[in-house]
């Protein structure tokens, strides 16, 4: 597989440390994310800020962060306005920018560190969104990383803060801690046993929301759910993080119970389902993204339940990533129409699944 080298718009290691598959519960939880919303006290919010002020916001945040980590820290700085459309979509597919940010790309900038585990989204809806992404279920570690960045910055810039309301944000749904914690969780067992709605309803009742793979407003595909805290005010950061961590573990348990039920009551059907999915993925010559997501979900389930050979979570994660539109185009180094994409996608799936763990082709 030919991949451009050594920057976050390129290789597997570039901005993708979070997808390595080596975190706790990686077979069920793809990634953990903590996001902190902050605004500089001296500048108005995006509704009323000028372009010149936005430039100063970028400068102050980049300088303050630079002073915190030192300039040799291997961080990468990107202005979204300088990037071609494919690269912007690529960053979106890597969860390093938000859709919101792409809408306002003229003044937006991105600072990436720690191999993509850390991203500072500048001039998004708020002046700054600190994003900490970790593989598997690692809410505490993820929060720790975000907290360190926040602490470093708070010694150098003044964030908008109200003695009663806490950190002030452009939209009041983020006010207070500005903290949104989320986990991207794969729940095929609960979907297959039709328990999922009960679980999601229960989560809503205790103040959690769920979304699809690409965050707010996106559909649930491939049985991936993004769970996050709904409120940001009235509880402190540790409580918010601990609460989601506890609930995520609980949901993992529900999912494991559902899988045990599948093994007990429908082993033949499940075995057939996951092997068929594996067969389709390794043989098909054309594949839509949605079809692949469904098949990949079954294969992930099969690997996790040890019904299929151990392909490795890391390989499944990379498959999920590299079969997205912008990634396929990046790899082909040209724009692809729908038909070309489906053929390219099928070829890439075969190539990745046909490979041994050490990268050699099995055939």
């Amino acid at each position, binding site marked *: 597989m030919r991949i451009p080298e050594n920057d976050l718009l390129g290789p597997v290691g570039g901005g993708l440390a979070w997808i390595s598959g080596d975190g706790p519960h990686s077979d069920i939880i793809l990634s953990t994310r903590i996001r902190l919303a902050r605004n500089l006290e001296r500048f108005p919010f995006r509704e*009323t800020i000028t372009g010149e002020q936005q430039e100063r916001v970028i400068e102050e945040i980049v300088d303050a962060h630079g002073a915190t980590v030192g300039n040799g820290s291997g961080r990468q700085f990107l202005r979204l306005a300088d990037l071609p459309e494919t690269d912007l979509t690529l960053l979106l597919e890597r969860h390093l920018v938000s859709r919101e940010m792409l809408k306002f790309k003229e003044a937006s900038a991105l600072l990436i560190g720690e191999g993509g585990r850390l991203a500072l989204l500048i001039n998004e809806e708020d002046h700054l969104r600190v994003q900490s992404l970790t593989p598997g279920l690692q809410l505490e570690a993820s929060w720790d990383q975000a907290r360190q960045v926040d602490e470093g910055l708070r010694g150098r810039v003044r964030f908008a803060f*109200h003695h009663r*309301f806490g950190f002030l944000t452009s939209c009041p749904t983020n006010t207070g801690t500005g903290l949104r914690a989320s986990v991207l969780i794969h729940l095929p067992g609960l979907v297959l046993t039709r328990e999922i709605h009960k679980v999601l309803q229960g989560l809503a009742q205790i*103040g959690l929301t769920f979304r699809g793979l690409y965050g707010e407003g996106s559909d649930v595909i491939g049985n991936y759910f993004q769970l996050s805290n709904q409120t940001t*005010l009235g509880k402190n950061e540790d409580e918010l993080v601990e609460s989601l961590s506890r609930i995520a573990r609980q949901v993992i348990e529900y999912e494991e119970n559902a899988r045990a039920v599948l093994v007990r009551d429908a082993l033949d059907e499940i075995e057939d389902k996951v092997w068929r999915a594996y067969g389709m993925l390794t043989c098909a010559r054309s594949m839509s993204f949605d079809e692949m997501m469904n098949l990949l979900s079954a294969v992930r389930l099969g690997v996790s339940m040890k019904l299929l050979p151990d392909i490795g979570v890391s390989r499944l994660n990379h498959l999920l990533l590299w079969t997205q539109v912008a990634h396929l185009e990046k790899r082909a180094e040209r724009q692809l129409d729908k038909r070309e994409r489906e053929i390219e996608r099928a070829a890439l799936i075969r190539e990745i699944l046909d490979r041994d763990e050490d990268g050699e082709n099995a055939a």
Partner: protein
Amino acid sequence: MLCQDCQQKPASVHFTQIVNDEAATLHLCPACARARGLKTTTPATEAPLSDFLSEMGAPIFTSATSANVACPTCGCTFRQFRKTGRLGCAHCYTTFEKEMGALLRKIHGSNEHVGISEVAPLGLLDEREARLHELRRQLRQAVGQEEYERAAELRDAIQNLEESREAVEARAEDEE
């Protein structure tokens, strides 16, 4: 259960406070709770934004004053905020403090921040004041969560800190 104060309406507000290390719970109807100046915490709603938008249409926000008052810093009016759902600048929160307080409570079930404070770089408060501020915040939280042992500890810590401040001030006066 009937309201302890009026003995007429059903009690729906249950407020616990600590008096002389003992927890005492008041059972009140909403009207009597208001009369005593108690704030109630509403549970977080399921769909914050839609609730919050409907809340913005409620009478409290359409009163001529708050709708026409503009934030002195950015010029945003509450009417504009109602349209976009986004505030113009940090000072809007102060300009529309009352409305924002009600709105934040509606969205989050609380309007009291209990997390990390931006007090360190302020320079406005000395260290002890910042510490007191933080302890009082923790105390409110502990009481809210009915953690009485912790609340009692916090209350003592606050008292100690206040006493030491008074001692310092008294000494300063003596020296003068």
